[in-house]
């Protein structure tokens, strides 16, 4: 039983190291900057609601949140819709160059977005898509396609061809088969890729940084970083802002935990 108590000790230590920074941020939002400066690790005394209240009633935070949501939803929808169609073609059709196309997508897995950013920025400038949510959502969807296709193709491949034969006998076209049978059967994998695309887009920083200059268009990660440098003297306010920015990600994670974990562990095994 000695081993067991060591295990508990380590577990508690791990929880502590993980959680203490988060608690510091959340509790810090309930203090004043003076309190924090004089005793950084102290507890709120008295508890101050002003910081959270100021941020929750300022349009800024909600604008950032709305922008992030809009971009993530558009990027996710595009990645899942186009990705599932492509995965269907690459898994259920035999045609020349199929593996080459597939390899092309998988090479995309190795592209750091930073590599393509400079020309991407010029391209978006040319298309007059700077300061436009689509200017971020479209590239993000494009960069999410490789992982979407890599997860969906084996999944769609594994669906037995007898089901397809039966559908065809019943008079379904390929498109009907895709829509009415393939997509519903792929639902678990679709959820996984949707969650991954959503999280990636939601957390993106570099592309929004380059595309948006007007703070009215900022996404949450961009907003948090800007807010921090703008109000660096007012630690309490920055802590409250950061704490509130964590809420959507952590909330979404609680809801989608199994999908995120399953997606990551599943995806890396091909």
């Amino acid at each position, binding site marked *: 039983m000695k081993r067991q108590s060591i295990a508990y000790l380590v577990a508690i230590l791990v929880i502590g190291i*993980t959680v203490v920074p988060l608690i510091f941020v959340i509790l810090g939002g309930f203090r004043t900057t003076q309190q924090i400066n004089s005793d950084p*690790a102290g507890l709120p005394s008295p508890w101050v609601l002003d910081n959270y209240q100021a941020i929750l009633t300022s349009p800024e935070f909600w604008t950032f949140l709305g922008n992030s949501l809009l971009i993530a939803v558009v990027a996710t929808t595009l990645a899942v819709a*186009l990705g599932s169609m492509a995965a269907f073609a690459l898994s259920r059709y035999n045609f020349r160059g199929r593996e080459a196309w597939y390899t092309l997508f*998988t090479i995309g897995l190795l592209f750091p977005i*930073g590599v393509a950013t400079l*020309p991407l920025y010029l391209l978006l400038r040319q298309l007059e898509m700077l300061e436009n949510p689509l200017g971020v959502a479209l590239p993000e969807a494009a960069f999410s396609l490789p992982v979407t296709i890599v997860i969906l193709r084996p999944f769609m491949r594994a669906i037995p061809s007898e089901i397809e034969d039966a559908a065809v006998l019943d008079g379904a076209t390929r498109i009907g088969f895709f829509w009415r049978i393939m997509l519903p059967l792929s639902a678990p994998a679709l959820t996984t890729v949707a969650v991954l695309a959503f999280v990636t887009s939601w957390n993106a920083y570099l592309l929004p940084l380059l595309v948006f200059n007007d703070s009215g268009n900022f996404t949450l990660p961009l907003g*948090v970083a800007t807010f921090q440098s703008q109000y660096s003297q007012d630690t309490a306010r920055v802590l409250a802002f950061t704490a509130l920015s964590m809420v959507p990600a952590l909330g979404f994670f609680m809801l989608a935990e199994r999908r995120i974990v399953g997606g990551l562990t599943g995806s890396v095994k091909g």
Partner: protein
Amino acid sequence: MSAVPSGLRRKLELSLFLGPALLLFIGFVLVPMGLAVYYSLYNWTGFGSLGEFTGFQNYLDALTGSVFQNAVWHNVLIAVLSLVVQLPLSIALALLLNRKLRGRAFLRVIVFAPYVLSEAITAVIWLLILQPGGFADQVLGAAGLGGLVRQWLADPDLVLFTLFVVITWKYIGFGIILLLAGLQGIPAEVREAAALDGASAWQTTRHVVLPLLGPTMRIWIFLSVIGSLQLFDLVWIMTLGGPANASTTMATYLIDHGFKRYEFGFGSAVAVILFIICFTFALLYQRFALRRDTQGAVG
């Protein structure tokens, strides 16, 4: 294959299914990538007409410049530190968390939580914690380690290690979850058989469990190295690569030159070098390490 439609119809269907994804992928991923190669051959600010053609001069300048060489070294150092610190740590913690513990499910969620926060939020959290005289310093003081207090982000000798600690905080949960999934894939009979043959718990772990975790570890190593090579958000927000370039990475170097100094051609050359490094690593790794585990998952 069933009921193959006629040629034209088939082609139409194929392009309907594959076309939009290809269009998006080519337009926003492959074309910019190709353009990066093109621009890298010019001395160009990114504004007005394409500047003077300079061939491989930008590449030469980057590769022979000490700041870029240091940036590559920083990326490599982070990758190596991840391998020697994060991997053993994740394995040890995963083995521990694989035991029957009360609240184990809760523990897993908690450990994984930092991974879902964006690097931007993570960076801001730790900027606030590491402020001089701030939370981290006070905690050290309270633990009787006040003598250890340093300029965590302003000391050129220290900044990279401080960043590594933050990276570890954010990403360790990912390693643990991945390895836990791997551990769950090892049938209990295998361990039982080893125990029946008289192996101690340590021997079982060392000679049975760890080798069976090999595929999971190799995947983790791949993702970790690629991630280390591409490191950007966290460093950019916390230090901008400073002080005095002590924490520059290839990606911060490239964005700094491309967007702050308007050396677009030069920045593109750096981008291409970064891509070649990632790609070469991926190919070699695929060939020599991953081959046994995955068929065609990457590359």
